[in-house]
Each structure stands twice: as structure tokens, then as C-alpha cells.
């Protein structure tokens, strides 16, 4: 025994002995000897990785000494320990270069959340009742292992299902090894904003099933079709850095930014020109621009290469998309279309982007392919000021192919569970909340309820983990070994790595460590496939293979490399080597546009329903953070609530005033929320942020607002099976007076200083 350990034990024992007999034992707190050396008042900065969205920004965590109530060896006590006080961007990290978005800033509250699950739990009431009792880790692991050995004994290994958010890096490897050695069903990856349509389109057009990396900083003309690239889409911090540069980072040179969508999004709000476009007509609009460029011989048709050949009529100059014809269908003047086309062609480098609602239509894949073709025609693919694809390292194309058909498979899972044949007997949940984030019409809740045994690794009880039988709480990200291979946002190869920024507060265990432990207890092939004792061992084993590559640090041996990478927050290549496009695989003949299909007839359901990513809550997974709840939404300034955006003309017709409670009904459900009358939305569209409407997600989010996903039609993008989440039609009715909490007060006013611009 080391002297330090001896001191720790004797101090703990001594303190406990001294407190004995001092009244209520519940109030006795033991004082532990600090586990690390810290100087009071001095901050140290530790690298970490933001895990709150898929962008994968690198962070620096400001750690200072503080006193926390913690549990050690089953005893509650007070410990002087390093406590994270602030999260900043890591200036050395190629993705976010020292910057961070509001969500990343709030990451602290995930760790310190009062409703975090502090110890393993076993269900003690009926399923979904939310009644759990605390159990030990030994008991919890025993339960899980016995469930898994029972599957092995009855040769039903395939009836183990893993339902997870898309994983990258070594977590992915650990999971894959586990799954293949156990011979369970392939993991089902689920996230609401899975960008699967864009990956599919990019795979066909450019040969990479990945999100693009956009070189906005060097671009002179940007046309975005619905992509909220400054708020929530793709790699928003990296894109915002580029945006700042394209606006004012180059003296005398300022790009033009055109946004095409049916509701002014947070990104659209910064556009120089806003062009209204009916939902689903984005591809038609893009091809109309291409038509003008071809017609006026500003670029030869062949310059679009393979991406152009995927579009029906490309070689003939897209005769169906003359601006005069398109004007009749989408209402945008042909002169506007022609002007934008000529501007874009004359102002190189010009880049086109597509994302979010524009791809969440039944014809979403066509829209994305059309924009890809336009991009190729503009000549910006794989060039400075355009789009490229981030080089990946070693691994599978980070979260790309693997993620294909994610929404598809959750739908399949639901169907399979409902049918009963080969249905999962054991379901393991990790960081995914499909009960909240799938349309009620898919029946995911009902399907999951049928699984005989469900274990969740989540840190919080949410709508899905509430159905669990066993909760094995994960460390918070700041308490965990983290690694990541961001799929976009930098032209360098980026492999992020971070040791824990703090010791764990609660009686939790890191999910990959638990998986390794379970594998060893199972023995046999599974143990052989996961030979590492701890997760950081697996990280070191793969990470140090990088040490001879030319990159952000040089080291004489793998050990030194490993140490340096931990100090810096990872490794990134010295050179920018974005992947240039190659001819992708396409499915036979060139694609024709089909008119977007919407669920519900225009007569009975007169409005398009547009759910959108919330700047604060993203897909709803951050609604439990009080800083996010109280931060005013950038456009509506609403705090602690939700709202339904309605054009003033529509509101007038339906006699709806600001803050009135309105009911939105689709063919699949209805919800109520306060009305926000705003000039930022088309009269035939109503919009609603995703994020609120949690039934069960901590004290801050439960029972607050309504969830737009719940009333969506189960309509899918035809070719890929992804949820077409912007293809539902709804009707709208005023219910009565209500209230809406806004920080900014009245919505339309003149800015005092800015009116003359």
C-alpha cells in the first residue's frame, strides 16, 4: 500500500469515527483526502471534446479546486477536487479554432445536472412508471450478464439489439467488436437529424457518403437551400468561423449570401438576399439556376461531370427548368432566378449548400442531387471556396456508410418488434431517445415496450430510458476518456483525444468500460474480441499507430506521442488534404424530379408543417439544461417554452393574436402551443422548433411545451427511407388566450441605429 492510500483510508476512517454519535447519521459527511494535486485559486486548462452534437469540436476545460459531495466506496463524503468551471473552444483544434456555440458552452450543466442518475438503478414498479431502486454495480452487471448468457444458452444471440446514437472512433470499435463476437443483430443507429439523404446524394454525386466540409472563408458567393449552417447543421462553429471571414476577413472583398427557404431560419436571417421557396421545390430552383448558366453559356454542361450526368435532361440544357416555367410553379420571378444564376456564375468561387428541410421531403434526394450538380457546374467542388470532403483516418468513413439508413432501421426495428418473430429479447440503449424523436405513427414506444429486457447506459431518464429495466449510468463526457474523428469541418485529418477533465462525481462508469467488463465476464469469443482491460488502453493501442505521421506534434516514441496528444486534445495532420470528388455509384438512369408528396390534402390540411432544429435544444437532447431553457431563442426570443410561427396575414384570417393558444392537427395527431405571429414565414407554412414537449426528461424539461415530431406523418424520402420530416400538412385553429414568455418583447420594430441600411 502506498503511503498516500494509507493516509486516505485512515483519514476517512478517522473522520467517520469522529463524527459517530453526532446526531442524524444522514447528515454526516466524510472528508476525503484529495485524489489530485491542485493549487487553490489557480486554474488549469484540460482539453476535452464536445459531444453535444455530431460536429465534434475540441474544447478546453477550465478546472479549479473546489469541494464536492461525492460517493467513494459506497460512502458519501466531501472531496477537494478539480472541478470544471468553464468550457471554451480549443484554439489548437482545427474544427472550431478556439470558438464554441451556445450549446457547447452549456456542456458544464450536463455534468452538474441535479437529475443525473447517480448510481445503477433497477426498475421497481411497472414498466414506464419511473419507479427505480438503487442497486450496486456488481448486481447491475450480474443482471445484464445473466440476460446475455441466457441468450447464448438458447442460441438466440441474434436477439440482442443495440440502439445507439451514431458512434465514432474507438467507442464504435468496441461496440462493433462486441456485436460481431456476440453475433448479435447489427447495432441500430439513431439520431433525428441524421443527414442521411445528403450522405446518400454525396455518395452518388461525389463518391463520399459524408457531409461536406465547406470552405466558406474563401467563397465569394454562397447559395444555401434551407441549410441552417450558422446554427445547427453540419459543423456550425467551423462554418461560422468561415462565414465571419467571408464577410469581413478579407479587406475589400465581401461575399454575397443567398438563402432559399420557406421560413427565414436563424441562418437565413443573415442572408444578403432571401428567396422564398415552397417546400420541396429546392431542387427545381437549383436546376433553374443551372438552366440559365447553361443557356447563357456561362459554363459548359460537361463541366458538371458525373454529378451533372445524374440529372435527367442535363446534357440537353435542362429544358424543363427554364425560369419562366419554374416561376409558374414556385412563384419566384424568372428575372430573380436568372439574375442569381448570372451573379453566381460571374462571382467565383461560388458554392451551393443544401440541408435540413430541403432534404426532408419525399423528393429530398433529388433536391440534394440537383444542388450537387449545380455545385459541380459552378466549379467549386474540391476547390478553394467550395466544398470538399474531410480526409478520414484509419477507420471506416467516419459515421457515414455505417449510418446509412439509420432512420430506416429504427422503423424496421419497430416493425420487427411488433411482428414478434426474431424480435429482440434484450435491448441495450445508448444516447438515443427514439421514443421522443420519432413520429408517434411509427409506434416505436409500443415496440420497445414489448422487449422483455431493456438496459440503458444513459445519464438521464428520458422518454426511452424510462422504459428500461436496468440503468447503468455512464460518466458525463467531462468525466470520460473521449475520442472522435469529426466527419467534416476541416480539410485536415483530425483525430481528437481527451483524458477525463475531472474525477467522477457520482457512482457511474464509462459505457465502453462497462462493455469491456461485460465481455470479460461473458468469456469465450466475446472476451477474445475485446482484449483490453480498460477503454483508455484501447485508445492508446490505436492512437499511437499515428505517431510517425506528419502532424500537430512530433514524438520520439509512442509513449511520448500518447502523452503529447492528451495535452493537445488530439492529433491532426500537418497538411490540408481534402478529398477531391470521384465519380460515385448511381442507381442506373438519370433522375427525374417528382413532385413532392405531402401527407394530408391541401383542402383539409391547408398548411405545410415545418419543424426545425432549435438553436438551444438541437434535436431536443439539450432541453434539460437550464442555461439552454433560459437563453432566448435568437429569432423569437422565447424562453422556457415553445411556439408556433404564423404569418401575420394567416393569423389575421384565423383571428389569432400573439401568444394565443392554437391547435395544430395533422392526420396523425395534434398539439397545442402559443402562437408567434411573425413576418419571417410564408403564409401557407407554419413552423415549430424541435426540442420541447418532453414527457419525462428532468425537472427542467418535463411537461414543458409540445413536441412537433409526435404529429409528423410517417412519410419517407422515397429512395432512402429516411423520415421526410417536413412533408406533413396540418390545419390550424385558435383555442383561446395564452401566454408566451419572450425576452425581446414586440416582434416588429425598427432598430434605432440601423434603419437606414
Amino acid at each position, binding site marked *: 500500500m502506498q503511503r498516500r492510500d494509507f493516509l486516505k483510508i485512515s483519514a476517512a476512517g478517522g473522520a467517520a469515527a469522529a463524527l459517530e454519535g453526532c446526531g442524524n447519521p444522514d447528515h454526516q459527511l466524510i472528508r476525503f483526502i484529495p485524489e489530485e494535486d491542485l493549487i487553490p485559486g489557480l486554474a488549469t486548462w484540460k482539453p476535452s471534446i464536445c459531444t453535444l452534437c455530431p460536429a465534434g469540436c475540441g474544447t478546453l476545460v477550465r478546472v479549479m479546486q473546489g469541494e464536492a459531495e461525492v460517493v467513494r466506496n459506497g460512502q458519501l463524503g466531501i472531496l477537494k477536487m478539480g472541478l470544471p468551471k*468553464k468550457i471554451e473552444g480549443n484554439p489548437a483544434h482545427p474544427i472550431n479554432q478556439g*470558438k464554441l456555440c451556445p450549446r457547447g458552452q452549456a456542456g458544464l450543466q450536463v455534468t452538474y445536472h441535479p437529475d443525473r442518475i447517480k448510481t445503477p438503478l433497477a426498475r421497481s414498479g411497472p414498466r414506464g412508471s419511473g419507479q427505480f431502486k438503487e442497486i450496486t454495480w456488481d448486481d447491475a452487471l450480474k443482471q445484464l450478464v445473466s440476460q446475455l448468457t441466457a441468450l447464448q444458452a438458447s442460441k438466440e444471440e441474434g436477439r440482442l439489439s443495440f440502439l445507439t446514437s451514431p458512434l465514432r472512433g474507438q467507442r464504435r470499435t468496441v461496440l462493433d467488436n462486441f456485436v460481431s463476437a456476440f453475433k448479435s443483430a447489427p447495432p441500430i443507429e439513431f439520431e433525428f437529424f441524421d443527414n442521411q439523404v445528403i450522405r446518400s446524394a454525396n455518395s452518388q454525386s461525389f463518391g463520399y457518403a459524408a457531409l461536406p466540409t465547406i470552405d466558406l472563408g474563401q467563397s465569394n458567393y454562397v447559395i444555401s437551400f434551407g441549410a441552417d449552417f450558422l446554427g445547427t447543421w453540419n459543423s456550425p462553429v467551423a462554418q461560422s468561423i468561415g462565414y465571419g471571414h467571408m464577410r469581413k476577413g478579407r479587406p475589400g472583398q465581401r461575399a*454575397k449570401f443567398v438563402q432559399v427557404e420557406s421560413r427565414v431560419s436563424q441562418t*437565413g436571417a*443573415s442572408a*444578403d438576399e432571401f428567396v422564398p421557396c415552397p417546400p420541396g421545390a429546392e431542387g427545381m430552383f437549383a436546376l433553374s439556376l443551372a438552366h440559365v448558366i447553361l443557356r447563357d453559356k456561362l459554363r459548359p454542361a460537361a463541366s458538371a461531370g458525373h454529378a451533372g450526368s445524374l440529372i435527367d435532361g442535363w446534357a440537353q440544357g435542362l429544358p424543363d427548368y427554364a425560369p419562366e416555367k419554374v416561376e409558374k410553379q414556385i412563384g419566384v420571378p424568372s428575372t430573380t432566378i436568372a439574375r442569381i444564376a448570372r451573379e453566381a456564375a460571374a462571382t467565383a468561387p461560388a458554392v451551393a449548400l443544401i440541408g435540413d428541410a430541403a432534404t426532408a421531403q419525399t423528393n429530398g434526394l433529388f433536391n440534394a442531387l440537383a444542388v450537387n450538380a449545380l455545385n459541380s457546374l459552378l466549379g467549386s467542388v474540391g476547390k478553394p471556396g467550395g466544398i470538399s470532403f474531410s480526409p478520414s483516418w484509419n477507420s471506416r468513413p467516419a459515421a457515414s456508410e455505417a449510418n446509412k439508413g439509420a432512420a430506416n432501421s429504427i422503423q424496421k426495428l419497430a416493425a420487427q418488434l411488433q411482428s414478434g418473430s426474431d424480435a429482440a429479447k434484450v435491448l441495450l440503449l445508448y444516447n438515443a431517445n427514439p421514443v421522443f424523436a420519432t413520429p408517434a405513427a411509427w409506434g416505436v414506444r409500443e415496440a420497445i415496450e414489448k422487449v422483455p429486457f431493456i438496459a440503458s447506459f444513459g445519464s438521464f431518464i428520458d422518454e426511452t430510458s424510462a422504459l428500461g429495466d436496468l440503468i447503468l449510468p455512464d460518466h458525463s463526457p467531462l468525466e470520460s476518456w473521449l475520442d472522435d474523428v469529426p466527419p467534416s469541418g476541416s480539410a485536415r485529418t483530425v483525430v481528437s483525444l481527451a483524458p477525463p477533465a475531472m474525477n467522477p462525481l457520482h457512482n457511474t462508469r464509462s459505457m465502453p468500460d462497462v462493455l469491456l467488463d461485460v465481455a470479460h465476464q461473458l468469456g469465450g469469443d466475446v472476451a477474445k474480441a475485446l482484449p483490453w482491460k480498460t477503454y483508455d488502453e484501447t485508445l492508446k493501442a490505436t492512437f499511437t499507430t499515428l505517431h510517425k505521421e506528419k502532424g500537430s506534434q512530433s514524438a520520439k516514441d509512442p509513449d511520448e506521442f500518447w502523452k503529447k496528444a492528451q495535452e493537445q486534445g488530439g492529433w491532426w495532420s500537418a497538411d490540408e488534404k481534402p478529398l477531391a470528388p470521384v465519380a460515385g455509384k448511381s442507381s442506373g438512369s438519370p433522375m427525374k424530379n417528382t413532385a413532392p408528396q405531402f401527407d394530408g390534402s391541401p383542402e383539409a390540411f391547408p398548411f405545410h408543417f415545418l419543424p426545425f432544429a432549435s438553436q*438551444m435544444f438541437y434535436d431536443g437532447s439539450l432541453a434539460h439544461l437550464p442555461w439552454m431553457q433560459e437563453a432566448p431563442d435568437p*429569432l423569437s426570443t422565447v424562453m422556457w417554452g415553445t411556439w408556433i410561427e404564423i404569418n401575420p396575414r394567416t393569423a389575421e384570417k384565423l383571428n389569432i393574436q400573439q401568444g394565443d393558444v392554437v391547435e395544430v392537427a395533422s392526420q396523425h395527431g395534434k398539439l397545442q402551443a402559443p402562437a408567434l405571429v411573425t413576418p419571417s414565414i410564408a403564409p401557407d407554412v407554419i413552423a415549430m422548433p424541435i426540442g420541447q414537449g418532453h414527457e419525462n426528461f428532468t425537472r427542467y424539461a418535463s411537461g414543458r411545451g409540445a413536441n412537433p415530431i409526435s404529429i409528423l406523418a410517417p412519410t419517407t424520402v422515397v429512395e432512402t427511407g429516411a423520415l421526410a420530416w417536413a412533408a406533413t400538412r396540418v390545419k390550424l385553429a385558435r383555442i383561446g388566450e395564452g401566454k408566451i414568455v419572450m425576452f425581446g418583447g414586440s416582434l416588429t420594430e425598427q432598430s434605432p441605429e440601423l434603419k437606414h*441600411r
Partner: protein
Amino acid sequence: MAHQWGMVIDLDRCTGCEACVVACHAENNISTVGEDEAARGRAKHWIRVERYYEGEFPDVKTKFMPVLCQQCDAAPCEPVCPTFASYHTSEGLNGQVYNRCIGTRYCANACPYNVRFFNFYNPAWEKPLHLQLNPDVSVRSVGVMEKCTFCVQRIKAGEIQAAAEKRVVKDGEIQPACVQSCPTKAMVFGDLSDPQSEVSRLARSNRATKLLGELGTLPKVTYLQRDSWHGGEDS
């Protein structure tokens, strides 16, 4: 000469993302007040993003403008304070001495920018959220007015560090939390008494304007107005 801290906010870069708003909460121990108090106008955001719509869909123009304490040189909040809790520091900040404040709220009434916030209750953090508190910033109790300090704790730390190293504070070395987080680099902080500093250089821009400058408050925050595209067929 003493430093004169100032800020420039480039509205052509600002996207209204509110990273500054949350960064400020995290840095300065600003308590959340909850839905009911927020509905009564008691939410405390030392920096906010104002959003302006002009026109009707689809010809609607949207503008964002982050507003924080303008650290006025002729600050209306200072002379009205009966206890000298609001005072002018030698480095040009509108200081707020919490333990002098008796909560008359005259300063908030006098301020034309609506950037002062009153603590109607003692702040509370549900355990263990209190562990997020920054030990460098005091927590304000009930009856006390609070506002943006330009992250004075960071300014002091930077000045002390520079003094210890026997050098002057380098331009850009000190960053308030909002500036540090801003993804588009719309916010620049620095010493206005140094004509070579980035903030001084930007404040001389022909896009420079002051918020409600006609009131004579002499703000030390300068806004650079949104620009427009200079190319195209109509120019």
C-alpha cells in the same frame, strides 16, 4: 495612461447565434430565474441579442444586434446612485460595487440600454449545479443590482499577469467570455487608449456607430453596421 477598455461589435459578422449569451452566464455566475420570473421580465442576460424584423414576407430583413452594458463615459447610471455603488473606474468601466448597493434601482431606471438587472431573490443553484460557479466572480444576493462588467475578473487577471512579467498587456490578450466564444469573431475587445490596438482601429471604421449615441452617453461599445454586397447587376 490608464487603459480604456472598449469593444467593437461587427454586425456584418454577427449571426445572432447567442454563444455570447450562454458564455456570459457560465463565466459570471448569472443565475437562471425560471419560467414564471422570466415571464415577469426578471431574466438576467448581461448580454442579449436583439432581433429586428423589417418588412413583410418574403421581403423581410432581419437584423441582429448584441446589446450589453455600453460602459458609457458619461453614464446616466452613475450620478443617480445614492450610495456610489455605480461608479466610474479609472479604466473607464461603469463599476458596480455589490456591497454598497442598497437596491434603489435608480441606475436601472436611468440606463437607456436596459442592461441592468435586479436580484429580486437570492440566487439558488440546485445541487450540484452550484459546482459550476466561477470562484473569480462573486455571487450577487437579493436586493442587489448587477450588470456586465466587461469580465473585470479577466481584465484584472491579465493586468496582474502582465505586471508580474514586467510588461504591458498585449493587444488581444484579454478577452471577455463573450468575445472569446464568438464563432464569427464579431466582437473585438481591447484598449481604446492605444491607437494601434485592433479595437481602436476598428472603431475608426466608416461603418462605426454608437447605440443611442445622440443621448450623449459616450458609449465605449462601437457597432459596425451591416454591409451589403458590392457586386452584381444593380451596382
